C-alpha cells in the first residue's frame, strides 16, 4: 500500500487499514461527466492533490480521527478538526436526546394502552426526563417555570443521588464540560431487585448534557472547514455555520444538489422520492468519480480511491437530507435517505463513510414509524461500542417489548 503523503508519519497505517478500496465497477453506462464539482474542494483536489497535505497540516492527527469518525477522540483536539468534531458530536447527542425523549413518551403511552403499568421508579425517571426537556425548552424560550407545576414539584422531590447527579449536569452544562459524567453514564443511577435480576435505570440527563456542552459554532472559513465535510465551497460553509443545529449541513446538501442539477426533494413523506433522488445523484457522481480515478495519478487514487472522498461526501448529503426529513416529520423518507447512505461494505460499523449519526437517524426514523425493535438493530453499530448508550438501548428495548407484549411470537427455520 502506498504511503499517503498528506499524512506524513501521523497515523497513516491505521487510516489506510480502515479505508476500503473501491472497485469502481459502476453501471458501465456512458453518462456525461459533470463539471459541476470542478469548482469545489473535491475539484480542487482532483486538479492538485498536493493541496490536501496543506489543508490538514494544522492538525493531521485530528483530521485522521475526523476522517474515521472517531469523534470523541477528535473532539479533544485544540484545532479546527477538534471544533468540527465537537459540533458533530453535539448534533449526534442531540439526536440521541430526541430518541430518549421519544422512547420515554412511547413507553408511558404503550404501558397505559396495554394495561402494563410502569414501575414507580420508571415513572419517576420518565418524569425527570420530561422535566429536564421542559426546562431546556423554557430556557430556549427564555421563560420561567410556573410555580407549583406538578412536574417541577416532582423534580424537587428527587432522591439525593438523583439530585446530586442533576447538580453535576447543571455544572457541566454551565461549564460546557461533560467531564466525569462520561464515566458515570454506563452505571445505573437506580437499581431495585426483581425475582430474576434487577431493574436498572440510567441517568436521564446525560445525552442532553453532552449535546449542550459540546455545541459550538462551525468554523466558516478556509479549506480546513471544508475538507471531509458535506459543504463543497467556502460560501456554502459560511452559510452553514449560521444554520440550525437541528438540520446540520442541510444547506450544503441542497447547494450541492443544485450544483449537480438535481431538484430538491419534495416536501412529502414519500420514500420513493428519496430513492429517485439518489438514482439521479449517483448518475451525476459516478462518472465524475470514474473519470477522476481513470487519470491514473497515484495521489488522486489515494484521495478518491482509498479515502473515498466522493462516497463520503455523498453520504453526508444524504444524512443531511435524512435529518431534515426527521426535523420536518417525514420519518419514512428520512429512513430511506439514511439507508441509502450506508456503505454496505461495512454495514454495521462506523467507518469513514458511515457517520455514527447515520445509525442514529435510522433508529429515530424506525422508532417514529412503529419499528421499535428494528430501531434497536439500527442503533447497534453505535450502541454496542459506546457504553454510555446503555440507558437509551434499555429504554428502547422496553418500548419494543411493550409493543409486542400481546403478540404471538413467530419463528421459522432459515
Amino acid at each position, binding site marked *: 500500500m502506498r504511503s499517503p503523503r498528506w499524512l506524513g508519519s501521523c497515523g497513516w497505517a491505521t487510516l489506510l487499514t480502515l479505508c*476500503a478500496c*473501491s*472497485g469502481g*465497477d*459502476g*453501471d458501465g453506462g456512458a453518462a456525461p461527466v459533470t463539471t459541476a464539482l470542478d469548482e469545489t474542494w473535491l475539484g480542487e483536489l482532483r486538479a492538485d492533490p498536493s493541496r490536501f497535505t496543506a489543508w490538514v497540516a494544522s492538525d493531521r492527527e485530528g483530521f485522521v480521527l475526523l476522517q474515521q469518525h472517531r469523534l470523541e477522540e477528535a473532539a479533544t483536539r485544540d484545532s479546527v478538526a477538534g471544533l468540527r468534531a465537537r459540533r458533530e458530536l453535539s448534533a449526534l447527542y442531540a439526536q440521541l436526546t430526541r430518541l430518549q425523549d421519544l422512547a420515554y413518551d412511547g*413507553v408511558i403511552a404503550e404501558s397505559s394502552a396495554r*394495561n*402494563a403499568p410502569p*414501575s414507580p421508579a*420508571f415513572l419517576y425517571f420518565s418524569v425527570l426526563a420530561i422535566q429536564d426537556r421542559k426546562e431546556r425548552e423554557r430556557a430556549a424560550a427564555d421563560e420561567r417555570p410556573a410555580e407549583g407545576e406538578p412536574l417541577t414539584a416532582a423534580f424537587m422531590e428527587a432522591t439525593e443521588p438523583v439530585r446530586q447527579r442533576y447538580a453535576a449536569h447543571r455544572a457541566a452544562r454551565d461549564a460546557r464540560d461533560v467531564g466525569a459524567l462520561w464515566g458515570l453514564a454506563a452505571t445505573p443511577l437506580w437499581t431495585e431487585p*426483581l*425475582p*430474576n*435480576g*434487577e*431493574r436498572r435505570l440510567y441517568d436521564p440527563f446525560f445525552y442532553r448534557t453532552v449535546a449542550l456542552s459540546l455545541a459550538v459554532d462551525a468554523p466558516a472559513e478556509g479549506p480546513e472547514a471544508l475538507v471531509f465535510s458535506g459543504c463543497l465551497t467556502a460560501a456554502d460553509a459560511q452559510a452553514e455555520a449560521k444554520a440550525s443545529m437541528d438540520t446540520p449541513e442541510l444547506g450544503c446538501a441542497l447547494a450541492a444538489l443544485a450544483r449537480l442539477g438535481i431538484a430538491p426533494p419534495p416536501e412529502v413523506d414519500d*420514500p*420513493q422520492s428519496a*430513492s429517485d433522488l439518489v*438514482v439521479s445523484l*449517483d*448518475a451525476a457522481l459516478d462518472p465524475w468519480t470514474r473519470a477522476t480515478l481513470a487519470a491514473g495519478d497515484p495521489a488522486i487514487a489515494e484521495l478518491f480511491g482509498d479515502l473515498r472522498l466522493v462516497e463520503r461526501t455523498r453520504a453526508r448529503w444524504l444524512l443531511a437530507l435524512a435529518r431534515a426529513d426527521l426535523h420536518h416529520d417525514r420519518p419514512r423518507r428520512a429512513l430511506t435517505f439514511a*439507508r*441509502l447512505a450506508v*456503505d*454496505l*461494505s*461495512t*454495514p*454495521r460499523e462506523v467507518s469513514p463513510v458511515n457517520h455514527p449519526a447515520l445509525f442514529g437517524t435510522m433508529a429515530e426514523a424506525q422508532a417514529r*414509524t*412503529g*419499528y*421499535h*425493535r428494528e430501531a*434497536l*438493530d439500527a*442503533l*447497534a453499530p453505535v*450502541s*454496542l461500542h459506546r457504553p454510555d448508550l446503555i440507558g437509551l*438501548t*434499555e429504554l*428502547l*428495548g*422496553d418500548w419494543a*417489548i*411493550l409493543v*409486542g*407484549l*400481546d*403478540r*404471538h*411470537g*413467530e*419463528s*421459522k*427455520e*432459515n
Partner: protein
Amino acid sequence: MSSARVMTPLLLAALAAPALAGSLRYAEDSAPAIVNPLYSTTMAEARVNELLFGGLYADDRDLRATPLIAESATLNATADELRITVRPGLTWHDGKPLTARDVAFTVETLQDPKTLSTEAGRVDWVQSVSVVNDRELVLKLKRPDPQAIDKLFFKILPAHAFASRPVTRADPFRTKPVGSGPYRLARFGDDNSITFAANPSYPKPLGVSEIVMREVSDKSYQAKLLLYESLEALVRVLPRDLAVLQKSRKVELYPYQTNSWWYIGFNLNAAPFDDERVRQALACMTDVPSLLAPIGTGQTLSGPFVRSSPYYNHDVPPWPHDEGRAAELMKSAGFTKVGEYWSRDGQALTVTVSAHKTLESAQEVVINLQSQWRAAGVKVDVEFLDEAAWKARIWKQHDYDVVLAQWSFDRNEDVREQLHSTGARNFGSYKNAEVDALLDSARASRDPAARKADLRKVHALVHEDAPMIFLWSLDSYSAVSTKVRDVVVHPFAYFSFVSDWKMQ
C-alpha cells in the same frame, strides 16, 4: 423438489428470459416444501403464505394491528369473549365466499391435536369457538385478555378446500392451495418455480401482476442473476455480495430478517450428547470466528438472541476456542485420547453433522467445522439433507447427532418453542426445569424489565447447558431491483405490503 446446484448455461439462459410486463421474479434458496400455513416451518413457506393467505388482522405500514379479513373484533366487558365480524363480500381465490365458518374451521383445525399443526400455539388462548352467522363468530377465551386482538394474525383457511377431517399434512391442499390473499397460486413449474397471479378480487388494485418464485439453490448465483436482470428480488443477500450489489446502482438493499441466528444443535437423546461436558467440549473445540469469516460478516453470539436484542445477556461471553479446556471436559466425561481421537469404552467419538441442503453457505461451514473437530480429536461425518429428509429425520424422528441450522424470529424473539421442554420446535429434546420456569415467567410478565431479567437468565443458563453452540447472526439484507417501486419490506414476513409495490 430437487434443484440444480450447479447452474447450467441452459438454466442461466432460461432465467435470463425477460419477465412478463409487471412480473416480479424473486429467488429462494429452496422452494417451499408445502404450501399450507398449518405446517409451515421455514421462512420460504412463510413468505409464500403471505402472498396467498390473509389473517383476521395484519400489520399496517407502522406495524400496528389493523383489520384485514375481520371488519371488527370486540371484547366483552370481562375481556373473556371476543366477537368477530368478518368483512362483507370477501371471496376465496376459487370464488366461494369467505365466511365466519372458515374462521371457526381454522381455529378448530389448529387446535385439533390430530392435525399435528406446528402452529397450534397461535390459538392456544382460545377455549371455544361458536359461529353466530355467516359474518359473525364468538371466541371464548381461556382467561381474560384485554389485548386478544393482537393475537388474530393467524392465516385463515377455507373449510371447503380440504379433502378430509382431521386435516393432515398430506392433504392435497398442499399443492392446490386456496387463499384470500393478494395473489393466487397459478402454477408450479418443472424447475420448482411457483407462479402467483394477482387476485382480481383483492380489495385494492395490485401494482405487480405476477410474482414468480425461482428456486436458485446456489446462492452465489443469485446476486449475478439480479445484476443480469433475470430476477427482480433476492430475499437474502450473502454478506459478501452486499457491496457489489450496492455499487451496481440497479438495486436497493433493505435490512431484512435481522433476528436470525445460526447454531450447532445437539440431539440430547443421543449419547454422548446427553452429557453437557461433551457438548461444552465441542463448543471449546469450535473456532467460531474462523467458521464465520469465509461466508461473510456478522456477529458471534453466546446465547439464543442477536446482540441488538433487549434479551441478549452481554455478561455472557461466547465459549472460548480453547482445546485445553476441551480436553479437560472430555476427560471428565470419561473420554481418553487414543491415537488421534477421543474414545470411550473403546469407541472413538464420531459425530454426524447434518445440515439442510439449501441453508446458505452451510457447505463451507460444515466442511470447516469437520476440519476443526477432526483436528481436535473427533471423527466427523457430514450429510446434507433435502427438505423432505430434514423434516422427517430431524423434526419427526429425531434421528441425528448434530445439526447446523438457523432460526429466524419476528420482533418478539420468543424462544420458548425452541427451549421449553414442551416447545414445538425443541427437536433436540432440551429440558431444564429452571429454564422452563423462566420462559413461563417471561411470557406471563407485563413488566419489560422483569421479562428482560428472565430471558437474560435463560440466555446464561442455556449457554452453560449448551444444547446448542450459538454461532452468529449474519448481516442480513434483501435486494430489490430499482424497477420495483414503493417497496416496503416487512421485517419478518417480507411480502406483507406487496399490495403497495409497483413495477416500473
